[in-house]
């Protein structure tokens, strides 16, 4: 066998590749499969949170913010418990980020609140003196894209088996149901906000981007 292979560089290369690939496979895959199971208590994002997540991606928050707390005391003191891979099971795509111009946001929902985000997103430097984070006043006027968020959730449900509509998990239902639920969630967020025009819009059945974004940030725990 070896003499045969030795005389055929192409098949030799193929066998070499298979051997190394096999070693990599048995080293990586079992652990990977185990670690990527959703952790207990991890839930898929609601439609409103998904809409906020789209805003987060669209405005490139992930260019300055990571969502991955590493297991060092200095990090867990500031941000809370280190991140586990299973917590990202329903993140498509995940938003680990690669650069921390600003702080990590993986558990920002634990230590910042709706009214704080409202002030901060409107004018970061007024809340944190010297902050270089840009202002996002357009989020208070732009309307969040709930329809795309619903389509996104629906795709994840049917294509990737994300457990929407299961017991104890967020409900998706029909587009009408989902729209009503998103508006209900938005009203809860708006109730803690101060900006009157945002409140008025939500009362009229529109969801400004800032409301969706805050719902998403509050869900990061």
């Amino acid at each position: 066998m070896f003499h045969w292979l030795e005389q055929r560089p192409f098949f030799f290369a193929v066998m070499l590749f298979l051997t190394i690939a096999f070693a990599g496979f048995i080293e990586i895959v079992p652990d990977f499969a185990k670690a990527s199971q959703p952790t207990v208590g991890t839930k898929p994002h609601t439609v409103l949170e998904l809409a906020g997540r789209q805003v987060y991606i669209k405005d490139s928050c992930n260019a300055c913010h990571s969502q991955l707390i590493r297991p060092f005391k200095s990090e867990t003191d500031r941000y809370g418990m280190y991140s586990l891979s299973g917590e990202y099971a329903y993140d498509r795509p995940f938003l680990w980020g690669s650069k921390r111009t600003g702080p990590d946001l993986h558990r920002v929902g634990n230590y910042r609140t709706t009214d704080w985000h409202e002030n901060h997103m409107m004018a970061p430097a007024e809340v944190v003196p010297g902050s270089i984070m840009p202002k996002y006043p357009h989020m208070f006027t732009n309307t969040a894209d709930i329809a795309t968020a619903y389509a996104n959730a629906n795709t994840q449900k049917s294509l990737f088996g994300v457990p929407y509509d299961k017991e104890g998990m967020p409900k998706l239902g029909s587009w009408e149901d989902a729209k009503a639920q998103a508006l209900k969630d938005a009203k809860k967020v708006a109730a803690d906000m101060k900006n009157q025009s945002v409140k008025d819009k939500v009362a009229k059945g529109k969801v400004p981007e800032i409301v969706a974004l805050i719902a998403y940030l509050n869900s990061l725990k």
Partner: protein
Amino acid sequence: MNSMVKGGILLVIALMAATYFMAGDAFTLGDDYINDLTMLGAVAIIGITVFVSLKYINQIKNDTATGELASENWDGIGEYTNPVPMGWAIIFIGTIVWMMWYLFVGYPTNQFSQIGQYNEEVNEYNTKFQNKWDNIDEGQMAKMGQSVFFLQCAPCHGAEADGMDGKAQDLTARMSKEQILDVIKNGSNKLGYSMGAMPPGMASGEGAEKIATWISTGMKGDAPAEFGACSSCHGPDGKGMNGMAANLSGYDNTLLSKVLEHGKKGSIGTMPSFKGRLNKTQVTAVSAYLQSIQGE
């Protein structure tokens, strides 16, 4: 003696001379036995390197191999079917045995864990923290409180703890008149005092105004008569009867621990809970800091 051995000896002498000129003045023989050993090692390395190289160069030049040729042949280069040398075979099998040991017994699957390392780091830190701050004095306490405050609280309460124009509680003073009126009107039930909830509507109209003004201006002088409705729980001095109900006159340790544990939602906004994020010393420290800035 053939010419290669002569060349080798010459090379060794040349190398040693070079070494001597470069580093020879750095030490005198017999000064320090570590230096002597180092020099001896250098001489040995030069000698061994040169003569081992010579041996193999010589072998390549003169050796003629024997044995049976394998059938394949690459552009005239053949291969003998000699058996594997014993030493080589032993090393090969030994490597496989070692691999099994490494995979199932040795490093890293059984020894290193990132989380284990993290836990060690935390334990080490906590022990250090305890040893260092076991006998902390008042001044240090307030200083520690200030640094905790800068990191954890200042983004909301402001670096000056003044609440940044009403974005959060102004911690240099107790509650404002509007806040107190709001609590009187709506009650309060979040902080987990042993008394339970504070019911809404304990006073109203002008009475409520009077109480709120008196409390928010620092409870100076006699309490208005209407405060009788409050003193059964908050005490005649408004200090909360040793932690039964909220202290209305200042941020004592009990109030602060309750706020940090449960968070607070009031007329200004929402404060998140800090449960498990600060240790006991740190909570006491923050409360010492808050007390040190009252009335500024």
